[in-house]
C-alpha cells in the first residue's frame, strides 16, 4: 500500500483540481501540490530508476535535496527539461512529466540487470575502463563497446534537441541585506533588517511559498503569515519566491535564479521563463536551514523509504500521508514528532525503531501515551519488498555487537532520520570554512566572512529534538551484505567508499572523484556526512581529520538560458553598422562580420555570383574607379603641444618631422619589437594629428596609447580621443578618382601637384566639412573622403553617382583585399601573427635612418630578431594559374618531400586576380628574399601544388599609378 490524501490538513487548494500525466498516465492533483506530493497522493511510489544500477526509487526528500525523483517535464518542442526534482515541480493543469533512466518502462527496466552485474560497476569503474585494452594504440574497446553502452545506460535524462524558444531575463540588483531562505530564521532576519526603511532587503526562497518548515505546522504557519504580511507592507523589501540562490561570490556578489513561468499552465506570451538576479548585497544572511540524513543500511533505497522530515512536510503542507502502516527508524527525537503528526493524520505507526539507547524524555512519554511501540538500542539490517518496501528488519545491539536475533516488522513506509546537517553550501562557496561539531555530529560554520551571517539551523544552533546522529554504515552490516546506499543520486554504496580507501585513496577529494559520491547536480546534499564518516572509519582516522570536500556551485542546476539571458541570436553581441549601411544594403551587398561590424563583402548584381562580383569590382578599380565604405577604419585624433613628440615615440617611423598637411604610413611595434598595428599618421596642423588604425585594432591602439600617455610619457602634454564614429569615410580609388571628387570638393586644390600622394587637406564636400586624405590601399590613385557621420550616407551616394557616370562603381571588402595583395600591402593579423618584424616584411625602410628612440627599438635588436633565416614576405605564383592556394597552407622546399619534413613557411593570403589573370599568394617563408625564382611545394587537400617564389609586389612595382 502507498500514500494517500488525508481528509484534512495542508496548505493547498483543496477545492480545485488540476490534471496532469506521469509516464502517460493521467492523474488529478490540487493547485499548491508538487508533482511529488500529487503522485504520492495518487499512490504512485515508484518514480525513477537509479543512475547506475537502475534500482527502483521513490521520493526520499521534500525539496532541492531530492536525489531520486528526477523527472523530465515536457512543455513541448524545445521546452523539455530533464532532471527536475519532482519535489520542486509545481503542479499545473496539463503538466506532462516522465520518469528517467529506464528502458523500456519504469516498471520493467532492462537496465536493472546492472544490479545483477554489480561487480561490473564498482567504484572507479569509469577510470578503470578508460584504461582498458588498446589495440594498435587505439582504445577500440572504449570507443566501440563501452562508450556507446554507457552513454545509453547512464545519464540523467536527455537534453532537448530543438532550440530553446523561451526568453530569459536578467537584472542587476543591489541591497543592503540579502536573506537566503524564508524559514523562521530567515523571516526574523528580514523583519529586523527591514525595520529601517533605508535598508534595502531582498528575501529569496527557493520554494514556491515562503516559510520553509513553518509551512508544515499550523503554529509555525501563523507566524509565517504574519511575517510575510508585514514584509509586504515595507517598500524597502523585495520578496522573491521560486528563487534559488545558486552561487555566492566575493564581496557580496550573489547569483539568484527566479523561476517565473514554469509553474504556469498558460504563461503570458511575453513572460520570461526564468530571471537571473545578479545581486550585490552589503550583508548576506544565510538562513538555509538543515537537511536530514538518511540511514545507511542494506536496501535502504526502496520506494517507500523516506526521510522523516520529508514525510512531515508532505503531511503538513500537502495533507498527504506517505503510507498507512509506517515504521519510523531514527536517531533523533524529531522523527517522533513526525510519527505523532502522521498518526494524527490517520496513519498507523507500527513502531519507532530508535538507534539510540534512549530517546528524549518528552517524546518518549508522548509515544507511550499514544501507545506507539518503541524499540531502542538497535540497528537496521535491511528492507524487504521489490518495487516498494514491505518490511524492515532490525536487531538489538549492545555496544557494537548484535544482542539478539533479527526481527522483521511489516510496513508500507519506512521513515528514516539519521540526524541533520546544516546547509552550508553557500558559505563554502564564499570561501568560509566549516568545523566538525562532535556533539552535533555535523559540520558547522567556522570562519565566516565578515559580510555574512549564518542564522537558524544553518548555524548549527539546533533545538534538542534535532540533535542525535547515526553516521555511516549501521553496525551489524558489512561489505558482503547487499547494497547500502550512501549517495542515492550517484548510486554510491558504503562498499564503494571502502573500496576506494582500500585502493589507496586517502584524500577525501580523491575518494569523491573516484566513487563519484557528492558529485553532479546533487552535490552531496543528503550523502556527504555519511560518505565522510565511512571514509574516516575505513581510514581509521577521525572525521575532522578526514575533512570535507568543497561544495561547488551551482547549488542546484541552472539552465544555460538563464546564464545567457538576453545575449543570444541578434543580441549576442552588439551589431555595429556604418552610416552607409543602408546604401550598401540597397545595392545588394553581401555582408561579412568583421569584429562587431557588418561590412560589405561584395555587391553582386542580379544573376551574378559573389565570386564574379568580386572579380568585376577588382577590375573596375584598376580600370576606372571604385567607391568603398572605409568608415570602420579606426581613427584617433591626437592633439597638444607634445602630440608630435608623443607619436614619434609610439611609431617605429619618424613622425615628428612630418609637415602639416602630410601623411605617413606608420608601423606600431610592441616592446618586443614585433609589428602589432599599421595605419596612416596625418598631420593636420602643428599640434593636431589624425591617425588611422585597422578596423579591429582601434580598441587595442587606444588602450596602448593611453597606457603610454598616462603612465610612461607623462612628461608629454597631449590628449587623444577616438573619432572613428565621428567621421564616415568613403575611399575613392582608381585612375578616375580625381575626376569623381573634384567637382564636389570646395576649398581644396586637388590637382596632382597641389595635393600629391600622402597628403591631407581640410575643406568641404558640397558644403559639408571634410577631411580629404590622398592615400591608397589599392595601389591606384586614391582619396579617402572623411565627412561627419550624419553626412556619410548622402556623401557616398553623391560620390557613387559621379563614379558610376565614369564607368566606376562600388567595391567590397574582398575586392579591396585582392587589390592590396596585388600590391604586396600587408594586413595586420593576416601577414603578421605577433612574431613578425618590419624587416621580415621588407618594411625596414619605414623606420628611417636617423637615430631616435621608439617603442620596440630595443626589442628589434634582440639576437633572434636579427638572426638569419627568419621568415620573410614573398609572393607565390602557382605553376597552374587556375590554382588558388589555401591560406594557412604550409610551404616545403622539397618537391618530393618525405614524411615528417619541416615546413619552411606558410601562405598568408591567396586570391584569384582578374588583373593578373591567375591565382597568386603572399607568404611568409624562411630566408624568402634569397630564394626568388625557386619553386616550392605546397601540400593541399588531395594534391601537391608547385609554386614559384616571386616579389610580393605583383603590379606596378614602381608605384606609378599612385601618383599623378
Amino acid at each position, binding site marked *: 500500500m502507498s500514500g494517500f490524501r488525508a481528509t484534512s490538513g495542508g496548505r493547498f487548494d483543496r477545492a480545485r483540481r488540476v490534471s496532469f500525466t506521469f509516464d502517460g498516465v493521467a492523474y488529478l492533483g490540487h493547485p499548491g501540490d508538487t508533482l511529488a506530493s500529487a503522485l504520492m497522493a495518487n499512490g504512485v511510489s515508484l518514480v525513477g530508476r537509479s543512475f547506475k544500477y537502475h534500482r527502483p526509487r521513490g521520493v526520499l526528500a521534500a525539496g532541492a535535496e531530492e536525489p531520486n525523483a528526477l523527472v523530465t517535464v515536457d512543455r513541448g518542442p524545445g521546452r523539455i527539461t530533464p532532471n527536475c526534482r519532482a519535489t520542486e515541480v509545481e503542479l499545473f493543469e496539463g503538466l506532462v512529466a516522465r520518469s528517467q533512466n529506464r528502458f523500456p518502462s519504469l516498471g520493467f527496466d532492462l537496465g536493472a540487470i546492472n544490479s545483477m552485474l554489480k561487480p561490473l560497476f564498482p567504484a572507479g569503474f569509469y577510470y578503470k575502463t578508460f584504461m582498458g585494452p588498446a589495440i594498435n594504440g587505439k582504445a577500440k574497446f572504449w570507443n566501440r563497446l563501452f562508450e556507446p553502452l554507457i552513454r545509453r545506460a547512464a545519464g540523467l535524462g536527455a537534453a532537448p534537441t530543438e532550440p530553446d524558444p523561451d526568453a530569459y531575463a536578467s537584472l542587476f540588483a543591489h541591497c543592503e541585506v540579502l536573506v537566503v531562505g524564508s524559514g523562521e530564521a530567515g523571516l526574523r532576519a528580514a523583519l529586523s533588517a527591514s525595520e529601517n526603511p533605508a535598508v534595502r532587503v531582498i528575501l529569496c526562497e527557493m520554494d514556491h511559498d515562503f516559510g520553509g518548515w513553518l509551512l508544515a505546522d499550523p503554529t509555525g504557519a501563523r507566524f509565517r503569515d504574519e511575517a510575510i504580511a508585514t514584509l509586504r507592507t515595507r517598500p524597502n523589501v523585495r520578496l522573491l519566491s521560486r528563487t534559488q540562490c545558486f552561487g555566492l561570490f566575493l*564581496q557580496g556578489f550573489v547569483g539568484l535564479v527566479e523561476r517565473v513561468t514554469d509553474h504556469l499552465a498558460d504563461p503570458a506570451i511575453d513572460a520570461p521563463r526564468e530571471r537571473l538576479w545578479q545581486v*550585490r548585497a552589503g550583508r548576506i544572511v544565510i538562513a538555509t536551514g538543515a537537511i536530514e540524513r538518511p540511514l545507511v543500511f542494506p536496501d535502504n533505497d526502496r520506494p517507500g523509504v523516506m526521510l522523516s522530515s520529508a514525510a512531515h512536510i508532505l503531511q503538513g503542507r500537502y495533507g498527504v500521508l506517505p503510507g498507512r502502516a509506517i515504521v519510523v527508524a531514527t536517531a533523533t527525537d524529531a522523527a517522533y514528532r513526525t510519527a505523532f503528526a502522521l498518526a494524527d493524520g490517520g496513519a498507523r505507526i507500527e513502531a519507532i525503531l530508535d538507534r539510540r539507547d534512549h530517546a528524549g524524555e518528552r517524546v518518549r512519554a508522548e509515544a507511550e501515551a499514544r501507545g506507539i511501540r518503541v524499540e531502542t538500542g538497535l540497528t537496521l539490517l535491511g528492507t524487504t519488498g521489490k518495487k516498494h518496501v514491505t518490511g524492515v528488519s532490525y536487531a538489538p545491539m549492545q555496544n557494537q555487537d548484535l544482542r539478539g536475533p533479527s526481527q522483521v516488522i511489516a510496513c508500507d513506509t519506512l521513515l528514516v532520520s539519521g540526524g541533520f546537517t546544516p546547509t552550508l553550501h553557500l558559505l563554502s562557496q564564499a570561501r568560509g570554512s566549516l568545523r566538525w561539531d562532535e556533539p552535533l555530529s555535523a559540520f558547522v560554520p567556522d570562519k565566516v566572512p565578515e559580510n555574512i551571517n549564518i542564522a537558524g539551523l544553518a548555524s548549527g544552533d539546533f533545538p534538542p529534538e534535532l540533535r542525535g546522529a547515526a553516521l555511516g554504515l549501521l553496525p551489524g552490516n558489512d561489505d558482503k551484505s547487499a547494497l547500502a546506499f550512501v549517495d542515492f543520486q550517484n548510486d554510491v554504496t558504503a562498499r564503494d567508499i571502502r573500496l576506494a580507501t582500500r585502493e589507496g585513496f586517502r584524500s577525501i577529494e580523491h575518494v569523491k572523484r573516484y566513487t563519484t559520491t557528492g558529485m553532479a547536480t546533487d552535490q552531496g546534499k543528503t550523502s556527504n556526512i555519511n560518505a565522510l564518516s565511512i571514509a574516516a572509519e575505513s581510514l581509521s582516522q577521525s572525521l575532522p581529520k578526514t575533512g570535507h570536500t568543497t561544495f561547488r556551485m551551482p547549488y542546484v542546476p541552472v539552465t544555460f538560458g538563464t546564464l545567457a539571458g538576453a545575449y543570444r541570436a541578434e543580441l549576442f553581441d552588439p551589431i555595429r553598422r556604418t552610416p552607409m549601411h543602408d546604401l550598401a544594403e540597397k545595392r545588394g551587398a553581401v555582408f561579412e562580420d568583421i569584429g562587431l561590424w557588418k561590412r560589405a563583402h561584395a555587391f553582386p548584381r542580379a544573376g551574378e555570383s559573389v565570386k564574379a562580383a568580386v572579380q568585376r569590382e577588382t577590375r573596375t578599380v584598376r580600370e576606372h574607379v571604385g567607391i568603398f565604405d572605409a568608415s570602420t577604419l579606426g581613427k584617433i585624433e591626437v592633439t597638444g603641444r607634445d602630440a608630435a613628440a608623443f607619436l614619434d615615440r609610439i611609431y617605429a617611423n619618424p613622425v615628428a618631422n612630418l609637415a602639416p598637411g602630410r601623411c605617413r604610413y606608420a608601423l606600431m611595434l610592441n*616592446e618586443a619589437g614585433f609589428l602589432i598595428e599599421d595605419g596612416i599618421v596625418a598631420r593636420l596642423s602643428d599640434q593636431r594629428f589624425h591617425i588611422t588604425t585597422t578596423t579591429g585594432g582601434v580598441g587595442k591602439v587606444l*588602450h596602448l596609447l593611453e597606457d603610454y600617455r598616462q603612465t610612461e610619457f607623462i612628461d608629454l602634454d597631449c590628449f587623444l580621443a577616438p573619432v572613428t564614429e565621428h567621421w564616415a569615410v568613403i575611399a575613392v580609388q582608381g585612375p578616375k578618382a580625381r575626376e569623381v571628387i573634384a567637382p564636389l570638393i570646395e576649398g581644396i586644390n586637388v590637382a596632382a601637384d597641389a595635393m600629391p600622394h600622402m597628403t591631407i587637406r581640410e575643406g568641404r564636400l558640397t558644403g559639408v566639412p571634410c577631411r580629404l586624405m590622398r592615400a591608397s590601399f589599392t595601389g591606384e590613385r586614391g582619396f579617402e573622403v572623411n565627412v561627419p557621420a550624419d553626412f556619410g550616407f548622402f556623401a557616398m551616394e553623391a560620390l557613387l553617382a559621379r563614379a558610376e557616370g565614369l564607368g566606376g562603381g562600388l567595391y567590397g571588402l574582398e575586392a579591396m583585399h585582392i587589390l592590396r595583395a596585388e600590391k604586396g600591402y600587408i594586413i595586420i593579423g593576416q601577414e603578421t601573427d605577433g612574431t613578425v618584424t618590419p624587416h621580415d616584411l621588407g618594411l625596414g625602410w619605414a623606420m628611417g635612418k636617423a637615430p631616435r628612440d621608439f617603442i620596440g627599438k*630595443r626589442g628589434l635588436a*634582440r639576437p633572434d630578431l636579427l638572426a638569419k633565416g627568419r621568415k620573410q614576405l614573398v609572393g607565390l605564383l602557382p605553376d597552374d594559374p587556375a590554382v588558388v592556394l589555401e591560406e594557412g597552407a604550409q610551404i616545403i622546399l622539397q618537391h618530393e618531400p618525405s614524411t615528417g619534413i619541416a615546413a619552411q613557411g606558410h601562405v598568408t593570403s591567396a586570391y584569384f586576380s582578374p588583373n593578373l589573370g591567375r591565382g597568386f599568394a603572399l607568404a611568409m617563408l624562411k630566408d624568402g628574399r634569397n630564394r626568388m625564382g625557386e619553386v616550392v611545394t605546397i601540400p593541399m587537400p588531395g594534391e601537391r601544388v608547385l609554386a614559384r617564389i616571386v616579389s610580393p609586389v605583383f603590379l606596378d612595382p614602381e608605384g606609378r599609378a599612385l601618383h599623378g
Partner: protein
Amino acid sequence: MLLIPCPYCGFPRPEIEFRHAGEAHLMRPEEPASDEAYAAFLYERENPKGIAAERWRHVHGCGRYFNALRDTVSDRILAVYKPGEVRPEVAS
C-alpha cells in the same frame, strides 16, 4: 565579479568596467641593456601566491590606469594607488 575601488572615481565599481593590464612596476632596463635583462623585462613575471601588484584600467569608466595590490589567494584588493605612487605596505 569583483568590486574594484578606482582611485580616480573614488568608490568601488564592478569588475566588468575594468581591464587588467599586467604586472605593475615593471622597469625597462637602463640602456645599454643586456639581452638577458631585456628578455627578463619582456617576459619574466612574478605571479606570486599572495600579494600581487598589478595594473588595471577603468576602461568603461574614467579611462585611467592605476595600480592595485591584490591577494591572489583571497582575491581581495588590498590597496589601489595611482601610477607613479609608491607601492603601499599592506598585510594580507
